[in-house]
């Protein structure tokens, strides 16, 4: 590694970080937040067996899980203008990522809801609560706990998948790396550098996941009570 490369890497790091803060992180956060809301609604209408909406949910999941993300991005950005729908690159990416990720997360949420024992509902009805009250106070919190690890997994996968947005001209951190490569012809160093930045972000997410899981585990671990008693 000579001085030139060190200089390129230092300059590249600044640009990549800037792009990550301006584009990659917002795209991931907004996209995943929307995906989560979509997933909740899609999972609930299926779980509650709402007629018509349930079929719409199945259809949506079938389409978005069954076609490649990159093709969806191209279709939305390069294809839709032919129908008169013109979107800027960033909002277009947000929409496609939300819908794509929402389809996967909907299945995660549905399976988590179905894993909550029927007896929780029966007990809820017997203390006088209605369906929505039981859902909100008892079933959904348990399902979210079950879904938390696979949802975190999806979030980390999505963070990395945002690099595909560069293909529809979104100036994310991968595109900023590509630009520097185009100028300096140092693909090995710069793509390694951008890979490390992705790794850094996913490591942060993994650590956050671990901390949250610990906090959430209180009601399905015997440990807490033993600890409490030992302290007392």
């Amino acid at each position, binding site marked *: 590694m000579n001085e030139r490369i060190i200089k390129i890497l230092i300059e590249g790091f600044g640009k990549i970080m800037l792009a990550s803060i301006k584009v990659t992180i917002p795209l991931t956060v907004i996209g995943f937040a929307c995906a989560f809301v979509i997933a909740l609604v899609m999972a609930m209408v299926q779980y509650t067996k709402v007629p018509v909406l349930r079929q719409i949910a199945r259809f949506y999941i079938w389409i978005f899980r069954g076609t490649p993300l990159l093709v969806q991005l191209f279709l939305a950005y390069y294809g839709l203008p032919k129908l008169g729908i013109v979107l800027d690159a960033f909002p277009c990416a947000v929409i496609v990522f939300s819908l794509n990720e929402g389809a996967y997360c909907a299945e995660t949420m549905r399976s988590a809801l179905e894993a909550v024992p029927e007896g*929780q509902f029966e*007990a809820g*009805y*017997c203390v006088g609560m209605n369906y929505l*009250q039981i859902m909100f106070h008892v079933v959904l*919190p*348990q399902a979210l706990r079950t879904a938390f690890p696979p949802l975190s997994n999806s979030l980390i996968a999505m963070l990395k998948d945002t690099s595909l947005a560069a293909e529809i001209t979104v100036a994310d951190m991968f595109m900023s790396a590509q630009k520097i490569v185009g100028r300096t012809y140092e693909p090995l160093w710069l793509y390694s550098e951008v890979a490390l930045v992705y790794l850094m972000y996913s490591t942060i997410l993994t650590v956050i996941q671990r901390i949250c899981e610990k906090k959430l585990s209180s*009601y*399905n671990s015997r440990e807490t009570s033993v600890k409490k008693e030992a302290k007392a």
Partner: protein
Amino acid sequence: MSMIDIRNVKKTFGGTEVLKGIDLTVEKGDVVAILGPSGSGKTTFLRCINFLEKADEGTMTFDGQTYDLGHIRHRDIAAIRKKTAFVFQNYNLFANKTALQNVMLGLQVARHVPKAEAQKIGMAMLEKVGLSDRADHYPIQLSGGQQQRVAIARALATNPEIIFFDEPTSALDPELIGEVLAVMKQLASDGMTMLVVTHEMNFARNVSNKILFMDNGYVLEHASSKEFFENPKEERTKEFLRNISSQHDA
């Protein structure tokens, strides 16, 4: 006037008639033990009269109001459930709530009781079942017997007119059965009206005052518990009691 009068409850599951016309009358303060061999329809009957299963036909008169069990409205179900409580074989405590929260939830959410008051009632009910020191424990951190006692506290919290028990001790270790039965016995002596599906013959004989004996979807005997154990009328009842006592001798 009786508190609850149930007539001709019928229920079919996939072509099999499980309940073939069950009648039951409950007076205030009664402790009715529902006995019978496995598959006789005891649990289904209990679930039908609390609408966890929908009966095909039958009527129920509760506090002077008569309901058609085959065509009951949601509003009526909700109204009846606010006057009753149910204790399950496998406890069914809310897994994401502590013991105290389990007891409070029906008050706070379904009846809009303010938190401080719900908490006070909740602690009093846990006290009653001897578990006030476990208020902050989650269900998984409690033994089966403790979970069932929390479930009983939860049932008591909403001040029901009657509590339905569906084999409350069947899932418990023999050692833990006693603590649950002791709580139920206390309730009975406090005058709580109870309907108990059970295999605990000592409870049926010593605590309950009435027996409903079911076999194959029919009621074979509906008698006082003294009469049932000392002077059973039906041959099938005698056979059932013989089998049970031979089990005890073995």
